[in-house]
């Protein structure tokens, strides 16, 4: 074995040699590039009626067309875009709230824990869909950002509970006491000692929240509470279902969005397993 570099380069060294991480990236990066370059690749309006309705994939229309003659490839790349935005914003916001509350409750314990736990449980039993219906009826906001915001604000409780439990078990370990004896501040103990020990757990939380946000967005789109213009992978799936693509044998309508969501969430999951091996020195040597 060649010399292993130390410090920051060490993680990079192992990351570049980790098959799982690379495999995940190979799937994820092209999809990200596709989403970022959507206007260049697919032109202007993905919902424009541009071709013969219900035609299967061809050299001209790679993914075929919908019942109404919309280009499915154009819808797919624009849909990826919205899906990534909803996933990152909604999942990210939920992960941030969940971590803040989970770490604080788990590390502090006592009364702080009781209060935060109560808050978590209240939001947990809140019927998110009903709240959304009311909010939407009164405010009438129909943008992707607002949708992501609502998803983020309602889907953090289980993450907070899981992180709280994990923090609770880690904070009683001796290395936390040793950090205290070294005069390290509480905030630094949480971010530098406890969080790195559960980094793969935290990333996993984000992935699940990311996937969850995409699916919640898809169901919101379905009941008409989604963005009023544009397209998302969830909206494509629901359109396909609504117009009986399955019964009509139009497999090219529902397979791309379904495969897209599966590929994104699956790639993130495989990457998480890989990252765990990169950051956990015990797994590295096996």
């Amino acid at each position, binding site marked *: 074995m060649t010399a292993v570099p130390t410090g920051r380069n060490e993680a990079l060294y192992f990351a570049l040699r980790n098959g799982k991480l690379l495999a995940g990236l190979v799937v994820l990066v092209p999809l990200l590039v596709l989403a970022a370059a959507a206007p260049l690749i697919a032109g202007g309006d993905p919902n424009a009626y541009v071709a013969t309705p219900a035609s299967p994939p061809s050299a001209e229309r790679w993914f075929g067309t919908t019942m109404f003659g919309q280009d499915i490839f154009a819808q797919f790349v624009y849909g990826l875009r919205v899906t990534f935005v909803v996933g990152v914003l909604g999942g990210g916001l939920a992960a941030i709230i969940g971590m803040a509350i989970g770490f604080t409750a788990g590390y502090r314990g006592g009364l702080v824990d009781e209060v935060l736990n109560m808050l978590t449980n209240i939001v947990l039993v809140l019927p998110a869909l009903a709240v959304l219906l009311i909010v939407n009826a009164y405010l009438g906001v129909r943008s992707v950002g607002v949708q992501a915001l609502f998803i983020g604000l309602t889907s953090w409780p289980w993450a907070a509970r899981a992180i709280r439990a994990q923090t609770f078990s880690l904070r009683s370990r001796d290395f936390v006491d*040793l950090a205290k004896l*070294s*005069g390290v501040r509480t905030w630094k103990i949480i971010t530098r000692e406890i969080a*790195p020990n559960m980094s793969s757990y935290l990333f996993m939380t984000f992935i699940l929240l990311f996937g969850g946000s995409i699916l919640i967005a898809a169901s919101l789109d379905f009941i008409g509470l989604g963005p009023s213009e544009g397209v998302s992978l969830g909206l494509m799936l629901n359109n396909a279902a609504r117009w009986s693509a399955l019964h009509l044998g139009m497999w090219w309508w529902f397979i791309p969005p379904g495969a897209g969501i599966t590929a994104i969430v699956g790639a993130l999951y495989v990457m998480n397993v890989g990252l765990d091996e990169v*950051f956990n*020195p*015990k797994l590295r040597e096996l």
Partner: protein
Amino acid sequence: MMLSLEGVTKTYRVGAFGTATLTAVDDVSLDLVPGEVVSLIGESGSGKTTLGRTVLGLLTPTRGRITLDGAPARPGKAYYRHVQGVFQDPFSCYNPVFKADRVIKMIKDEYFPGVAASEWEGRIEKSLKDVGLDPGQVLGRYPHQLSGGQLQRLLIARALLLDLRYLVADEITSMLDASTRIDVLNLLADLKSRGLGVLFVTHDLSLGNYISERAVVLYRGQVVESGPTAAVFGNPLHPYTIKLLSSVPRLTARWDGGDPAVPAVEVSAGPSTLVEEEPGHLVRRSGTTLTRSVS
């Protein structure tokens, strides 16, 4: 510089809604002076670890106070510069996802951010040498690549980087094998001769006898007997100490099939006080149950 405990008591709320209380440490007073090892002896649940953690400021005493050189001890850099701890399980003292020398880097970051790298390396080398470690063998390694003895010494080396006056050693040898154990004990004795005060928490009487100047026997959170090691071990006066001493297996004796001659202990729950039976030798007495006279 003296570290003293005055009437330190720690109670926990237990049971549903914290209705009951559990007194883990009950009115313990003792003084630590430089160059002296005080062993804190007791069985599991006697409160010895709680007391050790209270001295380190990891727990807040319910009553009583701890002072360092007359000033109240507050957990913080000023206090930890002089008072440090080493715990029972060396493996759990290291963050498993980082290299073992991180414990040393933490000291550098918090206490000596201004010290030049070259000078700091010299200090590390010196302190590793003091604990008998080869820098090449322990630096840059992960905790799971080192042995328990190496990890435990590295923790002591870490403490020595500070202006260390007192060390709370909580069962530091119980997870080490016999030959490493004696090395670590001799290391403590060496540090003691250089002026370090040690609170040696142990359940093992022979270790207490081996290393300490003074012994404090703890039972159900209370000090039942304390004094010079020779007096406590040579002339135990409290029934619990007598029981403890008679239940130690001896290297030369073998089990002969009979019941070991361990006397029953009756420790009354009523009020009791520490009585000075000999100069410096305190024994807990409570009116009626204890009748054994000084022999």
